[in-house]
């Protein structure tokens, strides 16, 4: 019986000829990641093992990105704990404020993850690196601690859903719309314990940033990982960034999938997740003009803080002003993206239109800091979750959308179609 792409990467890292769905394996890790929320718990657990140091100081990445720049004294203590651990163990890939970016944009950019790698991270959006053909998945702090100590983790080999993509997106539609469309179709547990493998002739029409966004939100369908084949687009990105040689795995032609879903990208419309689940989706044409008035727009995060996301937002905002009652916050995901956006003149466009531009942080996405919502307030956000209380008050609301829809909504003051805002 053939193996899926995900299964092949797992088999290789477990030193096995083949694996099958449901099999429990112990596998070698290429990278173990943690942030300022999850690493302090892991560091505490690590202390219980009696290990002098980590398995490989080059294969641990520590990125204080959630509540940093430190939002309060408690957060400062958490970040300090991570900084001290990084110093004590001489961790190569520790990124403090100034070098720091949002972890899932930063690790690919720094070339620390790439095709064929097996990565665990104590952050659920670790699944992002599947865009480059890596098997990467989120775990908790104890697994991170064990990974740091031993360089290994156990896995239950997942079965997979195959998404066969054809065609290409129409104007103003991007990777975010596709993944929200998929989550709306299969539900927040539609891929529970499974891999989401994206294949087909449509893949070549997806930018690398589209792929990061799609793989990033695999977890919002309950998936263990999301993964793309390694093609010219991925290789070109890795040529510029990745520190190792890409190891390319392809699914066997007789690989078995639990389910195959065909999607014509040209039919995907701008899609918005209404409160309070990512699966609660509506397409833009199902939302009335002025129906959902908003107070805040957030553009950024590990999901949509890439340069092409900022360009899409800027293309809508150029020469326009955001609505009077709206606050719009832009979060480039890394320092490099921040610099690039500045050089391209995107900041002029954002600031002239009335947006505020921030240093990289996860802050508003999880209701941490830098854009908390008051009771009854609504945000359109390019982030990844819209659970109860996610961005602030328990009676606030988050609507998930693409950068184009978020920017258009900032101008209109309500959830709006980018095409209409551009015409208007």
């Amino acid at each position, binding site marked *: 019986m053939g193996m899926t792409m995900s299964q092949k990467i797992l088999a290789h890292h477990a030193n096995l000829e083949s694996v099958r769905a449901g099999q429990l394996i112990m596998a070698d890790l290429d990278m173990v990641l943690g942030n300022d*929320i*999850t690493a*302090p*718990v892991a560091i*505490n*657990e690590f202390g*219980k*093992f*009696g290990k002098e140091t980590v398995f490989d100081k080059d294969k641990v990445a520590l990125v204080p990105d*959630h*509540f940093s720049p430190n*939002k*309060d004294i*408690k*957060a400062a203590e*958490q970040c300090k704990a991570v900084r001290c651990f990084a110093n004590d163990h001489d961790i190569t890939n520790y990124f403090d404020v100034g070098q720091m970016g949002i972890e899932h944009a930063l690790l690919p950019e720094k070339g620390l993850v790439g095709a064929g790698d097996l990565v665990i*991270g*104590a*952050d*659920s959006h*670790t699944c992002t690196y599947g865009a480059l053909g890596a098997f990467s998945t*989120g*775990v*908790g*702090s*104890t*697994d991170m*601690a*064990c990974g740091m100590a031993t360089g290994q983790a156990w896995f239950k080999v997942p079965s997979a859903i195959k998404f066969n993509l054809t065609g290409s997106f129409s104007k103003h539609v991007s990777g975010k719309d596709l993944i929200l469309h998929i989550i709306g179709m299969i539900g*927040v*547990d539609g891929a*529970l*314990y499974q891999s989401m493998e994206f294949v087909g002739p449509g893949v070549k029409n997806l930018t690398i940033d589209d792929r990061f966004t799609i793989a990033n939100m695999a*977890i919002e369908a*309950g998936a*263990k990982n999301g993964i793309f084949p390694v093609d010219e687009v991925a290789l070109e990105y890795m040529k510029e960034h990745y520190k190792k040689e890409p190891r390319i795995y392809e699914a066997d032609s007789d690989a078995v999938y639990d389910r195959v879903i065909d999607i014509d990208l040209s039919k995907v419309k701008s899609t918005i997740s209404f409160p309070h*689940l990512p699966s609660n989706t509506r397409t833009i044409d199902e939302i009335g003009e002025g129906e959902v008035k908003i107070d805040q727009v957030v553009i950024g995060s590990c999901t949509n803080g890439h340069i092409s996301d900022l360009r899409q937002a800027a293309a809508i905002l150029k020469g326009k002003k955001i609505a009077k009652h709206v606050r719009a916050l832009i979060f480039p995901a890394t320092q490099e993206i921040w610099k690039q956006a500045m050089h391209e003149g995107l900041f002029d466009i954002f600031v002239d239109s009335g947006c505020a531009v921030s240093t990289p942080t996860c802050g508003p996405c*999880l*209701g*941490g800091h830098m854009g908390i919502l008051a009771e009854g307030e609504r945000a359109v956000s390019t982030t990844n*979750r819209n*659970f*109860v*209380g*996610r961005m602030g008050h*328990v009676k606030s609301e988050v609507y998930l959308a693409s950068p184009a829809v978020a920017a258009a909504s900032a101008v209109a003051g309500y959830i709006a179609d980018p095409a209409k805002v551009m015409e208007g």
Partner: protein
Amino acid sequence: MQAKGTVFRYGDNVDTDVIIPARYLNTSNHKELASHCMEDIDQNFIKQVKEGDIMVADKNFGCGSSREHAPIAIKESGISCVIARTFARIFYRNSINIGLPILECPEACDGIKAGDVVSVDFTTGKITNETTGAVYQSEPFPEFMQNLIEAGGLAGYIAKGGK
């Protein structure tokens, strides 16, 4: 290994943001985390929960973030066991790793209401609704997992030599 307590009953897709809101994640102090457990969907939970009580929910319990603070908050609040139709995968892994017993049993979820008194035998996998007398069968915990839970989680289990 057994648990017995009064049931707190929840629905589908209870996410980690409502189990422990991110605004409280600037600490990893277990007691402080527990003091905010479930507050965004059930403000009475933390006032009413007693040592040994049991949480029962429907599908995809613990979806969302990888924060281990979520099972830690539940365990520290006094909950002795969570029973659900299904669990989100990271939450499942984290719960076992920190020594919070969790069981998948759709039949039990069909037959258990808020306020029922339920007992669980982890060795046999038997779940008994003491209020109605109904008995349900879930997967028993293998010996190593019982030892792991008694050691307070994976780290303690490894520190003891994994026995």
